[in-house]
């Protein structure tokens, strides 16, 4: 008697052990970034090249600071997963694991540093 019903065969996550989380995360972050990136380019681009006082003034206001911080966070998380996809395609074994860890570490470091700098300017 077949205990493996059709439903049992269909459900679950399969051999890859993951479902669609990665793809869904990229989709959500892409839509978020679709709105955030133009604001980021405008804010940062406008502030670049200014004196320190101008830069501090630009990021002290809540709107630019929050938008930039959000873009940094969502952007780096999007980058983290995108870079992981690239690494998984081209490298195997220990090198692959090491590179993935490196990229995740780098992404969080950049995010944390950026958010710290923004907080220091704005608060």
């Amino acid at each position, binding site marked *: 008697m077949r205990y493996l019903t059709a439903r049992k065969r269909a459900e679950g996550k399969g051999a890859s052990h993951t479902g669609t989380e990665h793809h869904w995360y990229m989709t959500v972050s892409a839509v978020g970034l679709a709105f955030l990136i133009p604001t980021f380019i405008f804010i940062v681009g406008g502030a670049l*090249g200014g004196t320190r006082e101008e830069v501090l003034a630009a990021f002290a206001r809540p709107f630019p600071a929050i938008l930039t911080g959000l873009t940094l966070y969502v952007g780096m998380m999007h980058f983290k997963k995108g870079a992981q996809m690239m690494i998984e395609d081209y490298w195997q074994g220990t090198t692959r694991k090491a590179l993935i860890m490196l990229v995740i570490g780098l992404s969080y470091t950049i995010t944390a540093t950026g958010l710290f700098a923004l907080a*220091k300017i704005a608060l």
Partner: protein
Amino acid sequence: MAETKQVDRPLSPHIQIYRPQLTSITSILTRITGNALIVAAVLIVWWLLAASTSEAYFATANAVLTSWFGDLVLSLSVLGVWYHYLAGLRHLYFDAGHGLDIPTAEKLGWACLVGSVVLTVITLLIV
């Protein structure tokens, strides 16, 4: 089970066989631009940290970012971000199930390539 011997299995050649297509080139460009943007991310975060720290530190970071080299890197990053942005929208369109036939996909691909240059020029003029 005993240690299996690592045999170098041959990969099916693809780059040496297939002529580059618009679809494959736009795809790899999406990956290249996305990953290369890490440079701009590091530069901008460094600049923000410098601004939040001290006048002297900011002077250094600002000098690097506004030098001809910094300008070049950031301008190329603008091109990269716009290309990746448009290609990303194209991907979202594909994911929704639309535009997957070759003529439409190629038209959209050209739109990404041309659009990114146009948007870059506009950005560099406005900002």
